[in-house]
């Protein structure tokens, strides 16, 4: 049974029509849902920033309310080195400076935020918003026991580095517990933190000059 010219044309035409119809359907759904999706992406980042500055907000707040809070309490500042946020309290006073902590993790990009108290140069909190690390291992960077280590820690001085070392080993003032079984992720996160600390020190110097 040979394919006639007419049969070929019908086949191609059919495929074309099917493709157009179904792709239009998907495009429509995408257009309808995209605002909600973008709002969710933004809300997750904002929640991370609020966690990094210990700004308590209700759980399960809808994305638009989170955006309202962001407008009131976060002021973005762009410098040559980095983008950071001024976290404003309810009186409009600066409670925190929040810096992004990002880089390549063990499997993929890791994004988080670290909040600094500008008055005494201590860390308020560390919060991760995005990563693709191994569940049960590298992914444990989001667990409270890990991020709590950073609370009230003094920002390392110029030339000092933070290290993530094996649990149980003796530690200096800038050493913290790594995640057992997640050496790759722990090392990567330590590097990211040190890069961010460089940025933080530079920004604080600039601000103090004014």
């Amino acid at each position: 049974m040979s394919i006639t010219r007419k049969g070929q044309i019908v086949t191609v035409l059919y495929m074309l029509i099917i493709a157009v119809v179904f792709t239009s359907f998907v495009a429509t759904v995408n257009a309808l849902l995209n605002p909600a999706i973008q709002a969710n992406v933004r809300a997750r980042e904002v929640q991370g920033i609020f966690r990094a500055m210990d700004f308590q907000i209700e759980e399960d707040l809808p994305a638009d309310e989170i955006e309202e809070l962001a407008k009131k309490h976060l002021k973005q500042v762009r410098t040559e080195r980095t983008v950071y946020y001024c976290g404003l309290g309810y009186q409009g006073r600066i409670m925190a400076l929040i810096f992004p902590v990002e880089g390549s993790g063990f499997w993929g990009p890791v994004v988080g935020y670290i909040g600094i108290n500008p008055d005494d140069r201590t860390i308020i909190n560390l919060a991760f918003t995005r990563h693709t690390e191994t569940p049960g291992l590298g992914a444990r960077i989001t667990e409270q026991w890990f991020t709590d280590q950073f609370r009230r820690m003094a920002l390392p001085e110029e030339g000092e580095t933070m290290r993530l070392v094996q649990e149980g080993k003796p530690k200096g003032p800038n050493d913290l517990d790594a995640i057992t079984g997640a050496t790759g992720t722990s090392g990567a996160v330590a590097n990211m933190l040190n890069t961010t600390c460089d940025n933080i020190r530079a920004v604080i110097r600039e601000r103090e000059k004014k």
Partner: protein
Amino acid sequence: MPTGRLGNWALIRRGIWDENPVFRQLLGICSALAVTNLLANTLVMGLGLIFVTGFSCLTVSLLRTYTPFRIRMMVQVLIIAVYVIVVDLTLKAYLPDISEQLGAYVGLIITNCIIMGRAEGYARSNPPWPSFIDGLAMGIGYTLVLASIAFVRELMGTGTLLGFQVLGEWWTPWIIMVMPPAGFFGLATVIWVVRGLFPEKEEKK
């Protein structure tokens, strides 16, 4: 293959038990291993698959008399992809936390052999309503198997079920249950137990 007239209940029973896609047909294994670490993820994945399989088979069946034979598979994949993208977008818009946990596995539903298997094996030669029922039934069969594996994996791996702490401090979590090997062992155990206790008719010989 066309199976002649099967009533709706027979189709449902066949999809969930007699020809269960996971432990009888051994299809859809990859996702069975990947998403069963948490029960909530499994249920959402299962619902997504039920939706996609049902509606893909329905759509394939509606177009079956018009689709030229030689391009039928391209059309099937296109239809499946469309429904999976809709599920992915819906999750990202309304259940962003679960969407993040499932990650790439939602998109990989397109490659799940079960859906293509039903589209090619049943929907393309049967009327729309039975095709829809068959698709739903196969999806439910898949979900039930995965849920039973996830039940054990989450309970023993973290002591929780659906996020709620069930086992107290006394339970030492089996970390291996959270990791991929447990998916292999769990699935293999399910297949072994079910086929051992309920062999298919040919196997009894």
